[in-house]
């Protein structure tokens, strides 16, 4: 059919056909190039994750073989530059966990109630104002949190410390740079994440569930705590897990307010976290000390990976519930 028409219309048809073919092939070329670019970009992040993982494992494991996994993880003596060095990071790991846990315990309830306020209670204008403040909080660089913590929070803590331990001989005064300060700063830092994700989850609870609760004679507070929050649980869990990740990975603010000695993590002790160990020692460490610091980094890395895995699990759980 096309062949016949081509003959009848001669060159002009053939040229049009050629042009159409050219246009089509150009469009196809654009498609192919675009696809390649997308694929390459996507591959970049995969490549980054894979190479970082590889790098951490390759550099973090030699020390494990030289010192021994048990001596690193479960020994509490950290004396990397002593004549007979000891590389136990037990207290450091414990400090990271304790600091994160305290930050979550202090920050999550406040953040959750803020989210409830924004989503359920506040009039629109007020909610917009508070919401904007929360977003700004998320954008403040962590070093600023650290600075303010150092200048404002630490002196307050010091006064508190002096009062509490006035009659405790042998207490090592920290000048307020201690675990509790770090936990408070972290609590504030994780709040924006927890607030905004919880708020979204609370807003996503269907209105008819609230209506049903009111129709049964429940009050607003009862409805919020017994229906809305349970219904928003998967989203709130996601918020908390992301908050944990942020707290665990924070280095700068913590290093400014936590004192920095390796100690049993108690509220009024100066402590060193996994992150702050890297920040404060990486600059001068050499030899085995440097290798152990890579192991410290690897431990932190594994923690963060575990948190992401649990997040994935929560999200999958939610998908299954929706079905």
């Amino acid at each position: 059919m096309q062949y016949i028409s081509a003959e009848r219309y001669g060159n002009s048809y053939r040229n049009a056909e050629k042009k159409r073919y050219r246009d089509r092939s150009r469009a196809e070329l654009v498609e192919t190039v675009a696809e390649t670019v997308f694929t390459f970009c996507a591959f970049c992040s995969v490549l980054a994750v894979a190479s970082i993982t590889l790098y951490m494992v390759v550099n973090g494991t030699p020390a494990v073989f030289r010192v021994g996994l048990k001596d690193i993880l479960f020994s509490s003596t950290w004396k990397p530059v002593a004549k007979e060095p000891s590389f136990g990071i037990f207290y450091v790991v414990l400090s990271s966990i304790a600091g994160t846990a305290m930050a979550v315990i202090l920050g999550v309830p406040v953040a959750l109630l803020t989210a409830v306020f924004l989503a359920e209670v506040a009039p629109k204008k007020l909610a917009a104002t508070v919401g904007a403040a929360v977003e700004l909080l998320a954008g403040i660089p962590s070093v600023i949190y650290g600075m303010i913590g150092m200048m404002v929070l630490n002196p307050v803590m010091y006064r508190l410390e002096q009062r509490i331990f006035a009659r405790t001989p042998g207490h090592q005064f920290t000048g307020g740079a201690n675990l509790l300060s770090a936990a408070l700063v972290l609590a504030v830092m994780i709040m924006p994440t927890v607030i905004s994700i919880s708020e979204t989850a609370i807003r996503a609870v269907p209105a008819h569930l609230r209506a049903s609760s009111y129709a049964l004679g429940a009050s607003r507070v009862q409805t919020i705590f017994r229906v809305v929050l349970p219904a928003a649980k998967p989203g709130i869990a996601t918020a908390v897990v992301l908050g944990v990740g942020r707290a665990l990975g924070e280095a700068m603010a913590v290093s400014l307010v936590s004192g920095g000695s390796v100690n049993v993590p108690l509220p009024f002790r100066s402590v060193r976290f996994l992150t702050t160990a890297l920040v404060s020692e990486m600059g001068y460490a050499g030899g085995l000390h440097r290798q152990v610091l890579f192991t410290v980094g690897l431990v932190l890395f594994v923690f963060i990976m575990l948190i992401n895995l649990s997040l994935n699990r929560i999200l999958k759980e939610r998908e299954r519930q929706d079905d």
Partner: protein
Amino acid sequence: MDDIKIRTDHLNLYYGRTHALKNVSVKIRAQAVTALIGPSGCGKSTFLKTLNRMNDLSGNVRIEGGVYLDGKDIYAPGVDVAKLRRKVGMVFQEPNPFPMSIYDNVAYGPRVHGIKDHGTLEKIVEESLRGASIWDEVKGRLRKSALGLSGGQKQRLCIARAMAVEPEVLLMDEPTSALDPASTVKVEELMKELKKKYTVVVVTHNMQQAARVSDDTFFFLMGEAVETGSTYSLFSKPRDRRTFDYINGRFG
């Protein structure tokens, strides 16, 4: 003469500038099923919601006139809305159990009203589920999530949930419009059963349903209660031309 459970007196309702209910004065009989019919937007659902003050929840609503439950104005100042809603329960169009177990769904109402004793709660849950004719289907999985039930089961669970606070009146807002025919039949049978104990008011799009289940029918149009009376007389010899046209499918 039958007992009057609810009476409205020149009830007017405005959403902002929209005059949604106009001078509605009706009487709802106790221990009977009253059907509210009419085309979409005629005010029948709005009227239903005035009976347990669910309209309070949407701002910008103004109400004039009175709604009397057992002779007492439910819009009088000082009325405890929670107590009122306990007396006047409601079942919604979409089956909407809470995302918790079947047991916790039914126990929700009694719990928010302060009942904590396990034995009492268990008794209430069983009675309510039996009352909603769903006990036999769920008794083996009371602790499982209510979201795993079928649509019809969910709706009967919602009816059980409403019954658990021992209301005197049950309001149903198109309770079967989201259900398949088989589930609809079950819920309709349940309504006939419910009127032995409760005063039932049901909004329905479906005129056959109104004819099948109700004793009285109110026909709403443009916010007015055009015709009210026994279902039999309203469907067999409507007094108003508009009622006649509507039930014969001329509009709506």
